[in-house]
């Protein structure tokens, strides 16, 4: 595209201001690799690890989640970018962002709500999290919710570990899960 950068930026900002987008997104750098951030008018919609993904795949992902009115629009994810920068710099231990959980089942929303209350620097097991939502036998279902968490880091599924303390799994890779827990001081 050869449209002048300033003109391109002005259009993208105008689209956000006019409230015409299902989601605005941007790919930002972070210590754990590039992250795709997407937000709707209702809040943060997705954080996705982009290590092995092409921009086309990222766009397709956002479209599936939000609708076809999606546009790369850095302005739409300004708050998320700033808070994540602070988090990775060790200056932020909790997030103050609206989250768009429309479409989530009651169970999923409940589990993610409890997950959001797991403090910085601490871990919880799948079974404990299941117990906290009143479904003590649903550890496996809780694992599935973690696995499908669309807003990792901010909804801290990296703080959920196996009953034996093992890291089990993570969408961004076990090395990333370890890196986040190390950043928070949960692993020395």
């Amino acid at each position, binding site marked *: *595209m*050869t*449209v002048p950068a300033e*003109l*391109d930026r*002005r*259009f993208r900002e*105008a*689209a956000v201001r*006019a409230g*015409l*987008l299902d989601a605005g997104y941007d790919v930002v750098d972070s210590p754990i690799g590039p992250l795709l951030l997407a937000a709707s008018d209702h809040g943060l919609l997705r954080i996705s690890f982009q290590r092995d993904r092409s921009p086309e795949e990222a*766009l*397709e992902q*956002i*479209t599936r989640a939000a609708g*076809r*009115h*999606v*546009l*790369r629009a850095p302005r739409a994810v300004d708050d998320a970018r700033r808070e994540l920068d602070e988090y990775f710099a060790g200056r932020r231990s909790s997030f103050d962002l609206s989250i768009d959980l429309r479409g989530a089942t009651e169970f999923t929303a409940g589990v993610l709500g409890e997950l959001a209350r797991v403090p910085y620097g601490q871990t919880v097991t799948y079974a404990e999290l299941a117990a906290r939502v009143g479904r003590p036998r649903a550890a496996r279902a809780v694992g599935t919710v973690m696995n499908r968490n669309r807003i990792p880091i901010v909804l801290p599924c990296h703080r959920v570990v196996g009953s034996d303390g093992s890291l089990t799994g993570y969408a961004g890779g076990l090395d990333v899960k370890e890196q986040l827990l190390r950043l928070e001081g949960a692993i020395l």
Partner: protein
Amino acid sequence: MMDGVATIPPFEAFYSQHADEVLSVLRRKLGRDRAEDAFQETFLRALRAYGRLRHGEHLRAWVLTIASNVATDVHRRAAATAHMPEVAHEDGRPAYEEIAGLTDGLPPKERAAVVLRYGYDLTYDEIAAAIGSSPVAARQAASSGVRRLRAASEGRTP
């Protein structure tokens, strides 16, 4: 596509694909400066209408039609606010050239009203918009300017 109908791409893909061509079409029609606002307007209109598309065919023609409509609106707005038609006088000089010299001695508002009315043939509504007053005040300014000119040509003060 399996059913032979193109699916509608995410708006980002549509925008990236057509932005260059839309901008160059608008630059040809409107010039560099005015093309920039028209570019933004074109894609905002497209974004507003994007949800009503039923398939992804002819998107290029679709967005170029929108661009063309925006350019027409820009021309129309320019004509409504700033267009100065050249009303040719009998001797071939444009009327505004002739009248401008005659009105040099008038107070600024009266001069503007007289020149716009009799030199450019604008309506009082258009004159009011141009000099930032009401149509009634524009009419009064023009007629008092004409009285002053008449008095001057007869060698008296009005």
